[in-house]
């Protein structure tokens, strides 16, 4: 019998306590923000969309190798002698034309592992986080500054250079052998 009334008492009492708490919260200002109108200030270490500063990129492929999901694709072409590619901001000399630097943000897991190995600190995470797209293909970002024609040109240049070099080498190899024949 005592338990019976105790049950009634505890039920009503705890319900009352709970109601008091929720009633108090009715007057506490909301902790949420109105997102698209108000945005939180992001901390400086924020990890969101990657950005590649191509002026500094030397095409060393280290970020691509560090990536656990292989979302970075890099292709490079060697420059031919006489071409000046300029220097990076920390004084490294660039020797490779970067003809492909794609990051697929549909795959990217924002782990920042690509940022640490970069020797010129040209790949880094920015605070842009609103970049949703309707098509998955649109999430593949191309960072190369060269135009498609220029890329083709560079490839051709290099192939031509290599062909010439090979021809020259062959000619150089051929030359000593050929000479005695002529005389004979």
């Amino acid at each position, binding site marked *: 019998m005592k338990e019976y009334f105790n*049950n*009634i008492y505890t039920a009503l009492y705890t*319900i009352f306590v*709970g*109601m008091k*708490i*929720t*009633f108090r*919260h*009715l*007057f*506490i*200002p*909301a*902790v*949420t923000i*109105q997102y698209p109108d108000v945005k939180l200030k992001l901390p400086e270490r924020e990890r969101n969309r990657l950005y590649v500063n191509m002026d500094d990129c030397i095409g060393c492929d280290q970020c691509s190798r560090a990536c656990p999901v292989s979302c970075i694709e890099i292709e490079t072409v060697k420059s031919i002698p006489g071409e000046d590619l300029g220097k990076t901001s920390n004084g490294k000399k660039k020797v490779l034309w970067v003809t492909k630097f794609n990051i697929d943000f549909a795959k990217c897991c924002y782990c920042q592992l690509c940022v640490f190995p970069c020797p010129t600190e040209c790949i880094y995470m920015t605070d842009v986080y609103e970049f949703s797209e309707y098509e998955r293909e649109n999430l593949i970002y191309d960072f190369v500054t060269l135009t498609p024609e220029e890329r083709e040109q560079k490839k051709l240049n290099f192939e031509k250079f290599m062909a010439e070099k090979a021809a020259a080498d062959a000619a150089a190899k051929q030359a000593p052998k050929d000479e005695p024949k002529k005389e004979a």
Partner: protein
Amino acid sequence: MIYNFFYNLFGSEIIAGFISAALPLLIFILPFALIAVLLERKVAGHMQDRLGPMRVGYHGILQTIADIIKLLQKEDIIARENDKLLFNIAPILVFAGSYAAFAAIPFTSAYIGANIDLGIFYIIAVTGLVVAGILMAGWASNNKYSLLGAMRSAAQIVSYEIPTILVVLTLVMFTGTTNLMTLSENQTALFWNWNIFGGPELSLAKFLLIPFMIIAFLIIYISTLAEVNRTPFDIPEAESELVSGYHTEYSGMKFAMFFLAEYANMFAVSAIVSALFFGGYHSPFGYLGNTLDIQWLIPVEQFFWFTFKGVFFVFVQMWLRWTLPRLRVDQLMTASWKYLIPIAFVNLLIVGIITLI
């Protein structure tokens, strides 16, 4: 007044009676449901340190209208294995049940849908339609979750009708009437004449009655809460267990009907509670219309007070919902059979004895 107008227009008592009873209620229920849904979301939001809907209109006041438009556009999905006839009737039946209950509720001294002498019992009887509708919905959905929800709901509503009726009996015994209009009229003038304060007659019995009236009020409030399936008694819907119970399979406007019925029901039971215990449409402090001697102002004031009391109890229902966890089926039954019904019985006896002396 309305009846006469339509009687002149159609020349038929039935049509005139029907329209005068039904139309104003519909005009009341629909906007009320809209406001109540918004209120629910706002109350929930603010109790949880959020803001609730904010984007449609100022502080989201048009949110429910946008929702209704969305629901109207939605595809009405009927699964292949459903029992189509029952599936389609169920939401209408549920809504009709709660809508019909409004007919006997006195909104002001000037307006009541149908002034029936057995008003309170009519309401309790006609809300039984809701059970039938819910069972139909659960069965016709051909979904195990829906079926479980429907069974639970039927069991729950049937067992909670008993404490409700016992408390109503207490009141009926004490006031001697089952007409809600008369019941409200009795508690006229100021708030200490309300039944919760022992009724209008000033005697020793009045003061003796107060604690028992409070107990009676608590019992009927709890059991009506269960009858309209609100937390902590929302086990037929039990979002986290049964997905959403008997209306899992419904979409579009049929779902909206269930929704509408739920909110209409919430107001109906609040109105009954306030009519039984809190003076119905009467103002607690007397009328401005009387002091200013403007007769037409009194019904307006009464309507205001009636809605105010109703919305207040609806608010408390929401407050409870956002505070409490939900009971289990067997605990729900325990609460009814082992706690509410015996206490209501004892209360009935005691009130009977007190009214005798």
